[in-house]
Each structure stands twice: as C-alpha cells, then as structure tokens.
C-alpha cells in the first residue's frame, strides 16, 4: 500500500442555501478542490461521493452518476461511486478514495460529500435522520436521534458526574471557534447560560446542545504521495485510515457510554500511523450533540473515560489548549450537512496543517485527526493526517 496525499481541498458555505441545488453544491465544492490542486478533469481517475439520504431529502438516488455528469466527467466515463454510512458517509467516501489510491488502482481521485437538507421541512428532516438508527427497534418505539444521545448523556452524567454546564462548554467553545471560520453556519458566540436556557429537546439535551440542519458540500483531491509535490508545495499525507462497525442499536452496545466503533477505529489508526494520541496536534471530531464530543475525546484516547467533561471545562480542547478540538466550529457551529461532514473535517485539518486556517490557526500543527460517526455509533471512521 503506497502513501496517499491530499493535494487540493474545497468547501461551500455551510448554511441554509435555498437557491442552490444538490448538484450545484457538489460542483462548487469539487471545482474549488480541483482549482486548489491544479489538476485537469482528464487526469481524475475516479470519484467517491458521500451522502446519507438524497433518496428522501430530494427523491434522487444514483448520485455518483449525477455528480460525475455535472462535473463534466460523464463524457470520459470516469468511474463514480456513492457510499453511505449515515452521518459518517463523508468520512467513508474519503476512506474508500484513499484505499483506491493506496492500492495503486487509481492515481488522482476526488472524494466529495454533501447533503441538501432544507428542501424538506424540519419534521421530515428529523424523520430522515432517524433512519440512521434502527427504525424497527428504536424509531418505532419512540426514539428520536437527540433522544438516543440524551440517554448516553444521562448515563455519562450519572456515572462520571459530567454536568450540563460541561456539555454546554462544548457548544460555547465550538461557537467561539466558528466566529473565526467564514464557512460556518453560526458565526456568533454563545454562553453557557444561552445553552442551559434554550428549550429542552430530549432531557438532558437542550436545543443548543444539538447540531443544526444545514446544506453544504466539501471535496478533497488525493494523489499518490510520491507525485504530490508535482501539484502542491503543501501536500498533507494520510498516515492512517480506519473504519469500524458496532451494533446499529444503542441498547445492544457493551457499554452505553462508550462508542466501541470509535475505540476500535482509533486503535487501528494509531497503529497504522505509528503515533499516540499525545502526538496529535489538532482534531476534528463528530459533535452532532455536545455529549458526542465528550465521548469522542475519551474514546479516541485524548482523555480517560469519564474525564472528557472536566477536560472541556478546563479549556484543554480549546485553541491554545492541550489538544484543540473542532477548530472549524464542529458540526455544532460550522453546521452538519450530513454527507459533507466527514470531508469538511479533512478540509479543516488540511488547512490547519498547511497553516492556512486564518484567525483560528493552531500554531505549529503537524499532525491532525478526524473522527466521523454514523448514527449513534454503528460506524466510526478515523483518519490521521500529517503535513
């Protein structure tokens, strides 16, 4: 397996983009990435497209063909593959693209992800998202997606004395980071009090503990490591790609407060990259709810199980802290167009490692990690990137 590098990145604004269609979102992100990399369409060997549920959001499947077509690659018959793992669809597209280059089967490959969520109403969107959990044994029983994470949060609070204030600190930090990210959906600060006084969605989670509904797309261009410098002076190398499954239902997990899929993927990724959690300078993790970021920083191994809330409260995950987490603003404040998220994480880390992250730049960042979760933890995808 040969080395793989990111040679170009692109990302749309993340927000409610009423005027922009699904296909236009992808083309915009893909074109930015292609311009950033300076590659020609003819040199692109394959596309991998991450999307959760265009079948229900816009009644369209066969997305890989659609995107290849509108990107101008259908006339040269470029293979195009759509992958889906609920909220981890973007990370999965990146991983499959990395494997395609690492194997030597392809050279220049685009990994794109996106979701067009605002063409349906909020009630419908909520129902579409709950298809990431077990419809027959969770959804039908009355579970919502916030409800599942709320049950994790309550047990975490019970066992480890994690507080609602600590959860709120995740949102406060990520909103603050987003004020420095011109792509972010919410570029305004919030306070712990704002979170705690926002309406309760599923106790103990408040509205401001939850990521929003967002339109957006992101793309990265991959090349074999040995030729990456032909395209860019600042290649970012993929040192590890790892994927793990767990039960789709939360109730079937060994431990309700641990995402074993994250634990397994992290173990594989650190082994593949030959680094330890302490050596990571920056991480983008899957904070679909504030409790999810707490789980992530524990299950990846940045902090011991049960200490994620306190670490957040102490500022250890802020920019300037021990391990800056979600400098982009995360899913919480940058926004969460489901299929785009895993790719946007790689875009953010790439820009940080290149030193191009503007006001939110983490000084001297050399190694970064992305963690993308499907559903309540049935899938986890982790990548480790190095400049």
């Amino acid at each position, binding site marked *: 397996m040969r080395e793989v590098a990111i040679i170009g990145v692109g990302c749309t604004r993340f927000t409610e983009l009423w005027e922009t269609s699904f296909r236009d979102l992808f083309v915009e992100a893909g074109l930015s990435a292609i311009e950033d990399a300076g590659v020609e369409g003819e040199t692109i060997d394959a596309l991998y497209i991450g999307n959760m549920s265009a079948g229900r959001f816009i009644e369209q499947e066969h997305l890989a063909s659609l995107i290849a077509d509108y990107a101008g690659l259908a006339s040269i018959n470029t293979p195009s593959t759509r992958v889906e793992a609920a909220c981890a669809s973007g990370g999965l597209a990146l991983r499959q693209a990395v494997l395609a280059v690492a194997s030597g089967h392809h050279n220049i490959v685009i990994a794109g992800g996106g979701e067009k969520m605002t063409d349906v109403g909020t*009630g419908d969107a*909520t*129902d579409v998202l*709950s298809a990431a959990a077990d*419809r*027959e*044994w*969770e*959804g*039908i*029983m*009355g*579970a*919502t997606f*916030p*409800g599942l994470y*709320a*049950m*994790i949060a*309550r*047990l975490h609070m*019970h066992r480890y004395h994690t507080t609602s204030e600590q959860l709120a600190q995740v949102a406060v930090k990520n909103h603050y980071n987003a004020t420095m990210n011109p792509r972010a959906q919410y570029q305004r600060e919030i306070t712990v009090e704002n979170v705690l006084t926002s*309406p*309760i*969605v*599923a*106790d*103990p*989670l408040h509205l401001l503990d939850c990521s929003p509904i967002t339109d957006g797309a992101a793309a990265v261009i991959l090349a074999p490591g040995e030729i990456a410098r032909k395209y860019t002076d600042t290649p970012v190398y993929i040192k590890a790609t790892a994927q793990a499954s767990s039960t789709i*239902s*939360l*109730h*079937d997990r060994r431990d*309700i407060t641990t995402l074993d899929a994250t634990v397994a993927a992290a173990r594989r990724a650190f082994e593949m990259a030959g680094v330890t959690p302490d050596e990571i300078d920056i991480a983008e993790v899957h904070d679909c709810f504030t409790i999810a970021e707490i789980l992530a920083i524990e299950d990846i191994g940045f902090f011991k199980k049960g200490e994620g809330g306190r670490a957040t409260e102490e500022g250890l995950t802020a920019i300037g802290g021990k391990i800056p987490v979600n400098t982009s603003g995360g899913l919480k404040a940058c926004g969460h167009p489901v299929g785009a998220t895993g790719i946007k994480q790689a875009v953010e880390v790439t820009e940080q490692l290149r030193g191009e992250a503007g006001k939110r730049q983490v000084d001297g960042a050399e190694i970064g990690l992305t963690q993308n979760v499907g559903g309540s933890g049935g899938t986890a995808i982790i990548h480790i990137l190095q400049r």
Partner: protein
Amino acid sequence: MTVPRFWRKLKHRYNLLGTHCTTCETYYYPPRKICPKCRRRGEIEPHRFKGEGKLLTYTIIQNPPEKITAHAPYVLGIVELDEGPRLTSQIICSPEEAEIGMRVRSVFRKIGEESAEGMIYYGTKFVKL
C-alpha cells in the same frame, strides 16, 4: 413506517418474544436468526421473556416522531431484562419518577399509529414495579 414491516414482527412486539442461543446460553431481544456470538455454531430457539428488568438510562422526549401518538413529554428508556437482553421502550411514568436503576415490568399498550391508513400499532411499554 410501512405496515408490513410492523406486522411482520407483531408477535414479538406483543409478547416480548425473542430468541435464546443454547450453545452460549445468551438471550436475544429482538429475535435474531443467528447468534452474533456463536454465528454458525449457535443453536437458536424462541424464548418468551418474563418482562421484568431495570432501567439503565432514560430521556424525556419533548419532540416526538410524527407517527408516535404518546403525548409529549414522554419517558423513553433502555431496559435491561433480567434474562440479559436490552431494549428501547417507552416508560409509563412521570418525568420526575424516572430513575436510573429502577425496576420495571412490561405492559401491553398502543405505541403508535399510521395517520394515513389510520392503523394503530400495539406493543410493549414498561411501568415502574
């Protein structure tokens, strides 16, 4: 939710009917066609659960799915049956009464309806013991 999907497992929803692997002595609910632990070596038989257990964790749902008729807010929890398996279910109690670790038992109740066809779905919920 489509009607056939619900009715297909109806007897399992009504009666807490799951499966038991005699190879590794593990109980499963919902029913499994193969034992996830033993896979090909597993021997699966149907098993009707007694319906008692404890509440592992819970939440109070303020915004229910459109097809769930329970009046919000309602308590949703993960129950660990005494035989071992866990399931997600509505808990019939006030939000203040719910407590991690409390003993519960299953009851037969309406759990939702399909507005278009007017179908009503019955199944299992849990009450405080």
